[in-house]
């Protein structure tokens, strides 16, 4: 029997992806674990591994094809002894299988991988697993660790375990994690999206189509760069956030001198290879402030407000063609050296688009720093479902009025906290900033 290799869902939010590159060609022998393709997902480029062994009989989707729906057949694998050349493309591959020079027809009927909800206990345990013949596990290289009970509950509620962060030992997903998750975590059924001549309209109908009128701009007068996964997601999510989240900004000025001095001291005393940045210290200070003001470490949901146990700090990293927010998990428990090392690694891999989904999802608070560009202050758009995002401006020497009304020179930095008002009131946000100010202005407090 030939085996269909299908477009894998590499993250729970992924509905379609771009087949960036084939790493095999027709006639190649592959065995389980071999890399066969690179797929550009909504946020990153990931490699797909073969699950079965055999000979690549046919590649059904051309390199560079955008918008290949999850679960569409992308290649056919012939098992040993089968005549690869005799194989025809399976009928079910249908439209999506056509090598698409133009934009591929969206496959509306593609079923989301639906967990089996069999009542039989013998089957239910294995339910959340994707069908056996899928060419890729949901997350290559990352086995999902979950307790049997968590798997069962996830299956019953239709939750995709790969979207969750486990709170058990070694990140194991336990009952508590699935109970707190919303069924919506499962891959949603797609709504219609009409192919358009210019640009792509909203993939989910939430946003009004944004098309350029030929009468305003002559099509010859600009160059159109197609949207990639990152751009598309950033566009959708930020529009949703800005329109749906009632947000308000709070700004405060912080004196930075002590923090800079502390940083100098720390770096002087640190082992070779460790160099703490101001941003690393701000990550730590943010995390500790979230622990001090746990009301602010929260997400709005229709079922209630989710108060997070850990402070997971998303840090905005500009990448070629967009923005991504790798997460420093449990930053409140980590030392500066650890945060610094982790951040360096995450940022480097973010720029190469090599982050795994679990590395850029699950933050509870975001930090965006444009200080290095000399921006004095700015407001960011909330990164849902997080409740707050902080925008950090540049530290600059300024005249300030000291305690005894004398003028002095101090390094002052302005930060703006944007809050989701459904979760965080003005007073709570202000209290959080007070806590943050204390850590920045008295950095010794971070050692407590």
């Amino acid at each position, binding site marked *: 029997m030939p085996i269909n290799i299908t477009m894998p869902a590499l993250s729970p939010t992924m509905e379609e992806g771009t087949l960036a590159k084939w790493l095999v060609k027709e006639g190649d022998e592959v065995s389980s674990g071999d890399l066969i393709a690179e797929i550009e997902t909504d946020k990153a480029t990931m490699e797909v591994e073969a699950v079965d062994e055999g000979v690549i009989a046919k590649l059904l989707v051309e390199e560079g094809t955008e918008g290949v729906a999850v679960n569409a057949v992308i290649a056919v694998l012939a098992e040993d002894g089968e005549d690869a050349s005799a194989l025809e493309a399976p009928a079910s591959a249908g439209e999506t299988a056509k090598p698409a020079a133009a934009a591929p027809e969206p496959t509306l009927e593609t079923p989301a991988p639906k967990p089996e909800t069999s009542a039989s206990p*013998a089957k*239910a345990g294995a339910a959340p697993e994707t069908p056996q013949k899928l060419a890729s596990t949901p997350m290559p290289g990352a086995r999902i660790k979950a*307790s*049997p*009970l968590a798997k069962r509950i996830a299956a019953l509620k239709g939750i995709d375990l790969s979207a969750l962060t486990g709170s058990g030992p070694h990140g194991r997903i336990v*009952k508590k994690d699935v109970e707190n998750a919303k069924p919506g975590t499962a891959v949603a059924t797609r709504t219609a999206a009409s192919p358009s001549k210019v640009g792509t309209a909203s993939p989910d109908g939430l946003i009004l189509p944004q098309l350029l009128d030929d009468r305003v701009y002559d099509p010859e007068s600009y160059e159109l760069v197609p949207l990639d996964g990152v751009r598309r997601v950033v566009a959708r999510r930020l529009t949703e956030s800005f329109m749906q989240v009632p947000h308000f900004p709070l700004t405060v000025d912080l004196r930075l001198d002590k923090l800079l001095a502390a940083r100098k001291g720390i770096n002087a005393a640190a082992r070779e290879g460790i160099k703490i940045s101001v941003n690393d210290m701000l990550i730590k200070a943010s995390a500790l402030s979230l622990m001090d003001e746990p009301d602010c470490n929260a997400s709005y949901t229709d079922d209630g407000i989710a108060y997070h146990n850990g402070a997971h700090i998303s840090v905005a990293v500009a990448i070629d063609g967009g923005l991504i927010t790798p997460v420093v998990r449990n930053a409140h*428990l980590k030392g500066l050296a650890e945060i610094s090392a982790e951040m360096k690694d995450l940022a480097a891999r973010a720029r190469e688009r090599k982050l795994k989904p679990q590395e850029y999802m699950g933050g509870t608070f975001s930090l965006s720093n444009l200080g290095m560009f000399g921006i004095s202050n700015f407001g960011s758009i909330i990164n849902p479902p997080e409740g707050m995002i902080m925008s950090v401006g540049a530290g600059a020497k300024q005249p300030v009025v000291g305690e005894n009304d004398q003028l002095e020179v101090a390094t002052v930095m302005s930060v703006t906290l944007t809050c989701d008002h459904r979760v965080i009131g003005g007073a709570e946000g202000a209290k959080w900033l007070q806590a943050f100010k204390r850590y920045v202005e008295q950095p010794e407090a971070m050692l*407590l």
Partner: protein
Amino acid sequence: MTDTNFDLIVIGSGPGGYVTAIRGSQLGMKVAVVERAEIGGVCLNWGCIPTKALLRSAEVMHLMKHATDFGLKAVKPEVDLEAVVKRSRGVASQLSGGVKFLMKKNKITVLEGEARLEKGSPAPKVIVKANKDGKDASYQAKHVILATGARARAIPQAGLEPDGKLIWTYKEAMVPDVMPKKLLVIGSGAIGIEFASFYNELGADVTVVEAVDRILPAEDEEISAMAEKAFKKQGLKILTKASVKDLKAGKNSVKATITPEGGKGETHEFDRVILAVGIVGNVEGLGLEALGVEIDRTHVKVDGFGRTGVAGLYAIGDLTGGPWLAHKASHEGVLCVEGIHGKNEAHPFDAWNVPGCTYAHPQVASVGLTEAKAKEAGHKIKVGRFPFVGNGKSIALGAGEGMVKTIFDKETGELLGAHMIGAEVTELIQGYVIARQAELTEEDLMHTIFPHPTLSEMMHEAVLDAEGRALHI
């Protein structure tokens, strides 16, 4: 001169305190432990361990009395009370010595004396009034963990107060001077029932009075009923829904007024009375109020990692509330010290995963929700039961009385609770505790191989029975 600066000072060396100290030392902390009485605390010296030694004597007595059932002849067995108590004390002192060795091995400084706290930074200062010379010495640590435990509750308003001679708490009951002919046990929790079982086996005429409608009120109702039946069969008198008031100690006996609910009080005379009406935390004399530690009745309020809300101050074990069990204290202590060290974020304390054991004859053991509590919590449940009489090993042991009961969530297959009564069930329960901790479902348990012939097979059968698939019944 002893060091006065530590990373961690633990106050109390019971199973909570000394285990916490060892874990702290393993994590590289410089640790001291303060103890005002014996190293090892109540558990080793006046609780779990010496009572188990006493109950072992009772068990041997029981077997000797029933020797003919096993084809053996025993001359009429007699109790040498002094020797029974001596054995129990010997066991306690051997283990207390063991803990002293563990302290030394882990380089833990033992400060013998009474501790109190004063404001300090980064953690409260610990002032220890030495047992040796009554002099105060001040110690400072980065973290202080309170593990001062609890003691028997007295209710003076109701005339229930121990006198240490005729009216006992667990402590005196463990070192009886005479074998009481008529004994009254007030309270039918684990402590009350264990002493009732012990004295009954050794020949006393024992009456147990319980305020609510069943004995072992924390256990599943079905288990309580089976226990009551078994104890009554052994000659124990059990009065439920009854209260005792106004204990009046005479010269060598105590008069007690026992009032059934809604009935009239009657006065009875007993040689001795054991008060087992609960536990109060040892919160006094530590200076907690001045530090602003939140206390709920006699227990220090803490979060899942033992934090009290006062910087650098933590509390674990009986002091923080129920279940009042040594293994709960040890576990909390480890969580707390790992939390301090930044090692544990995943596992805050979960009271529902603490197994409870009563070492009477028959034994009772349980974990998780009772059937009633599971229903109350809104679970749709399936229940499995398996009787000892269907198990080969228990018949061979001559212990055919008892039951294993499992309660599962019908939908998710979660093991909500497990309840057992019968021989050696206290050794079996941990299998179900592992299942709960690892979040196994009924399916995993059904697929597990249980060795034959063992009592543990009943645990498998009770799971299968919840699915209507029990094999041997």
